[in-house]
């Protein structure tokens, strides 16, 4: 359940940004979490519901944008099928993960006086 420690990192970061901007509350948080990031989006949302009480995020909506896992051959640009062996059928090169491992805090929308 590392989702709990991710949420506590999130709340810490958001509180610091809110202080820096003299915000009175946070309105909405937007994250991008990849399908292959090793983070369960549902668990993350549950952990957030649990931990946000009493923080500056108490009323803040959490939006999580998913990012698809995409493996590509770095030489010929061929896109590998889901679940395939991770080397290019054409050139035999090891594939590269182009997206899907993101655990990103994109945006904080805050209320300022």
């Amino acid at each position, binding site marked *: 359940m590392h989702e709990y420690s991710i949420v506590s990192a999130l709340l810490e*970061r958001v509180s610091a*940004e809110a202080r820096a*901007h003299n915000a009175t509350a946070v309105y909405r948080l937007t994250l991008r979490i990849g399908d292959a990031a*090793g983070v369960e989006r549902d668990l993350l949302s549950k952990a957030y519901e649990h931990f946000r009480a009493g923080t500056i995020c108490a009323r803040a909506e959490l939006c999580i944008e998913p990012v698809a896992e995409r493996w590509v051959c770095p030489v010929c640009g061929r896109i590998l099928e889901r679940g395939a062996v991770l080397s290019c059928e054409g050139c035999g090169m090891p594939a590269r993960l182009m997206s899907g491992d993101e655990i*990103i805090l994109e945006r904080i929308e805050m209320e300022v006086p």
Partner: protein
Amino acid sequence: MCQDCGCGDREIVPVEVHERLLSGNDRVARHNREHFAAHDVLAINLMGSPGSGKTAILEATARALASRQRLGAVSGDLATDRDAQRLRAAGIPAATITTGSACHLDAEMVHHALHDFALDSLDIFVIENVGNLVCPAIYDLGQTLNVVALSVTEGEDKPLKYPVMFRNAQAVLLTKIDLLPHLGGVSLQMFNEALARVMPEPRTFPVSALTGEGMDRWLEWLEASRPRV
């Protein structure tokens, strides 16, 4: 205050961050990595399920390299000091990071533990992570290399079920291969096929800490991975 109509509503200001959520951990990990590099220490983050044989391989590694490399280790453990005791009995300085209920080590815990070691007098430092195939995978500790121990008794489908851990590994130790004859048709080939679907450049070392089979190749790779002084 809303400047448009004077309604008195608070203004909502978007702040673009675009930063990794674990950037705080990543910062400490970078610091650890610099620390290891400055002392020419090869740092291994050894991960795997509880009971996959992490400590047994480490004991066998420590004994085999005793005359050539100076090893040190920290073991992440929820509640006991048993792994570190075993490693000290195998002749290497070892400490425990007691994590309580935490399911993984993070860079700060490793940084704190490093204060107990004189890195100048070490060549290889092993961070034995908490037994878990999920949570440790996403935390950078500042290691030089990630190694996963996967015992053949766990089943060849584990890489497909826990892809992130294996994707981020530079090598996989397939442990307990002395048990293969008892596993009704399970073969190393089946593990390799599963790993090829989660690791772009799979590197496996089939080993038995009990019989010593396969340890040579693992030790050779480990020694070759040391930073050149």
